[in-house]
């Protein structure tokens, strides 16, 4: 079933993984990440532990019943979605090194399939343990939860795997039919659920809605094969759990046997998978996190050159062009939506002037600014612009005969452009419905733009000074999530003094000129901008003097 050499390789890779983790933990930064992650997980599990300890003798909560009722249907939808979206292909994406040492090795398709399934299972097991602990108050027992979650996940994975293995043997028409059937079945469930929910006579509650969704004929029939897994998860240790687990294992065994009997093209599929994975890794390393469309590889020039501008121009031009292209149609799409929403809001206000309450109209612009700040934060931290670009790409900027401060100033422009574009898009409808005067609204927009520039500056500053990236580069590893969280934490802390200064300045302006939006917003905006040149100078100097640029880290 599996060649001893492959089990040996798995053992060695596992040991190497632990060794690498230990090496990272031993370093001060690694130790900090580990503690940070443990604290996060600890806080996440704390309520579970408390609930488990205190609710030992109580009957299952309403939420627990909802979970038990919903699991089979959720599992069916997950399996259908995996088939419809060809997610099984991702399961065949072995590591590039495995192309040479496993796929090209002296192993049969069955050996390689066993190797892949076991590596997936070993990866899924710790996640199952985590979920079993996390959901403990809503499960029958820890053991049942662990068995149910792990075997349920394995069944869904195996179904997707089986579909992928069968694909080369099936005609395009049959494949289309299977995908259509999967999507149609989900659509039928949704339509049935919508009908049942709208037809409920009693007042809505989570239990009533859950029963309406899960009690439908289509939902019950289609989710039937997944019921044993829910039984295992939610029942106390006993005969029912045992029977449920035996049925679950039987289903997994059947689909596994079927996979082994149909694994003839597995190697070819895996080779394609490795190529896909390699391309994906190269793309992410290059900073193209969104996977922007390269279907149209030919592009006309997006923006004319900005001119010299003391060295800021060339850097800013490259940053803005990259940032806009990298986010694809997202930014223009948001702007168009903003314009449409503004026109719609104007029309609604004309026809129904009292639709929007006064409070909403007063605070429309600040609310839009807050929403755009959040959206901009999500977009900008994943777009790898400025000093957060891949270290190798930054070599370009380090070889330029441009002063450090000009480089740093130009580097901010990519992120700032994205943030300001989002801000304008969300603020357009807000400006239409706002009951504030033009001066007050525009001054708030100025404060928002100043916040965007300050935020972009700080993102670059942290990347240049600490070497941390919002989206860490390199081959993904278990510490990347932790590094991203640490970046966000540092970013939040770094923005605090700027925001405090802005609030303080707004307060002083209010005390001197009166508490009007106009004065307070302008004062806050100016305060946020005041210290930025110093940050640009320091970040630029650190970047140019840095020795790590050009090396992939």
């Amino acid at each position, binding site marked *: 079933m599996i060649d001893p050499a492959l089990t040996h390789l798995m053992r060695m890779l596992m040991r190497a993984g632990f060794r690498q983790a230990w090496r990272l933990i031993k370093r001060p930064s690694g130790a900090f990440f580990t503690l940070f992650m443990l604290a996060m997980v600890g806080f996440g599990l704390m309520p579970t532990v408390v609930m488990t300890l205190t609710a030992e003798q109580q009957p299952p909560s309403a939420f627990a019943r909802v979970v038990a009722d919903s699991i089979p249907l959720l599992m069916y939808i997950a399996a259908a979605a995996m088939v419809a979206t060809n997610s099984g292909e991702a399961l065949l994406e072995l590591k590039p090194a495995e192309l040479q040492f496993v796929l090209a090795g002296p192993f049969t398709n069955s050996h390689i399939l066993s190797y892949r399934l076991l590596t997936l299972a070993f990866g899924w097991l710790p996640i199952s343990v985590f979920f079993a602990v996390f959901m403990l108050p809503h499960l029958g027992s820890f053991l049942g939860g662990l068995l149910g979650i792990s075997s349920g996940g394995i069944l869904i994975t195996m179904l997707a795997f089986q579909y992928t293995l069968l694909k080369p043997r099936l005609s395009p028409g049959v494949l289309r039919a299977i995908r259509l059937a999967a999507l149609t079945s989900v659509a039928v469930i949704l339509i049935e659920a919508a009908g049942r929910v709208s037809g409920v006579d009693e007042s809505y509650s989570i239990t009533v809605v859950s029963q309406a969704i899960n009690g439908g004929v289509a939902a019950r029939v289609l989710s039937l094969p997944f019921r044993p897994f829910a039984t295992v998860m939610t029942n106390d240790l006993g005969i029912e759990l045992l029977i449920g687990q035996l049925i679950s294992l039987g289903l997994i065994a059947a689909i596994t046997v079927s996979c082994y009997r149909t694994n003839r093209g597995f190697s070819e599929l895996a080779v394609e998978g490795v190529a896909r994975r390699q391309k994906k890794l190269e793309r992410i390393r290059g*900073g*193209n996190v969104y996977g922007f469309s390269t279907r149209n590889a030919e592009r006309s020039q997006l923006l004319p050159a900005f001119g010299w501008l003391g060295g800021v121009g060339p850097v800013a031009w490259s940053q803005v062009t990259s940032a806009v292209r990298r986010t694809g149609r997202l930014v223009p799409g948001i702007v168009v939506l903003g314009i449409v929403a503004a026109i719609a809001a104007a029309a609604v206000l004309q026809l129904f002037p009292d639709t929007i309450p006064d409070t909403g109209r007063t605070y429309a612009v600040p609310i839009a600014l807050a929403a755009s700040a959040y959206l901009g934060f999500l977009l900008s931290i994943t777009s790898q612009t400025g000093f957060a670009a891949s270290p190798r790409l930054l070599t*370009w900027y380090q*070889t330029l005969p441009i002063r450090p401060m000009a480089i740093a100033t130009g580097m901010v422009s990519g992120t700032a452009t994205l943030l300001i574009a989002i801000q304008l898009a969300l603020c357009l409808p807000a400006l239409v419905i706002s009951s504030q005067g033009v001066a007050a609204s525009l001054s708030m927009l100025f404060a928002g733009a100043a916040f965007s520039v300050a935020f972009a500056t700080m993102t670059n500053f942290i990347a240049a000074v600490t070497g941390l990236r919002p989206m860490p580069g390199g081959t993904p590893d278990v510490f990347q999530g932790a590094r991203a969280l640490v970046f966000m934490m540092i970013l939040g802390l770094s923005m605090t003094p700027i925001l405090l200064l802005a609030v303080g300045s707004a307060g002083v302006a209010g005390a001197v000129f009166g508490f009007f939006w106009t004065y307070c917003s302008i004062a806050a905006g100016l305060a946020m901008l005041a210290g930025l040149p110093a940050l640009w100078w320091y970040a630029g100097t650190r970047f140019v003097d840095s*020795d790590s640029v050009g090396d992939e880290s």
Partner: protein
Amino acid sequence: MIEVEAFVKRYGDFVAVAGTSFCIPVGSVAALVGPNGAGKTTTIRTLCGILRPTAGRLRVAGADLAVDPLLVKQRTAYVPDDPPLFDTLTVWEHLQFIASAYRLTDWQGDGDGLLSRFSLSDKKNTLASELSRGMRQKVAIACAYLRSPDVLLLDEPMTGLDPPSIRILKDSIREQSQRGATVLVSSHLLSLVDDLCDFLVLIRQGRVLFSGPLEEARAQFGGASRSLEEVFFRLTGQEEPNAPEADELTPGEQASGDD
């Protein structure tokens, strides 16, 4: 001209370059050769201003790196091994970026000429993400040539190129040298060095074993075959356990070796 005097580069406790000195005359095509980990890339990256020297004096095209690093960058072009490009910019936009960053005027004709020479004309408006490894290399070289630098630093420039492109690149390097540019090529391809270069800097473990005209190296260390390969193995002491180590060479043999 490239003048390097007692150059030291340390990364923490690790010494990448341990006090090297060499001088490459104007208009030379020099080879920077050495085994893996010799300090070639560190030397080149320091010469183009990316890395700061820990100690020593480096003058590139008449500008002192410590005194005026911006002038060094203005006069130097660096093409790294496997050059990174902006995936979101087209080939032409890369040239445009270089033109604006180095304040070039009327560069479009030269840009078109370079693209044509490196068979990139039909890729002018193609995103860099869609280019093959060799094409990316050619775009980086075209960007370097566009501004006619006084010093060209090329790190493994032939990697990924097809035979016609290698020939074009070799011809173009000679032309750069003829117009007065100093070219420093780091490469493991000794046949390329033999064919292209007239000056040799051989380093190992951060120390210069030889620097001087290639003919001189051949005459002194090339043995009967007078081959560069022989020079390399004799001076680095690799592959041939019985060959004399650099330290064991006679004073006459060491005369041309710096460090």
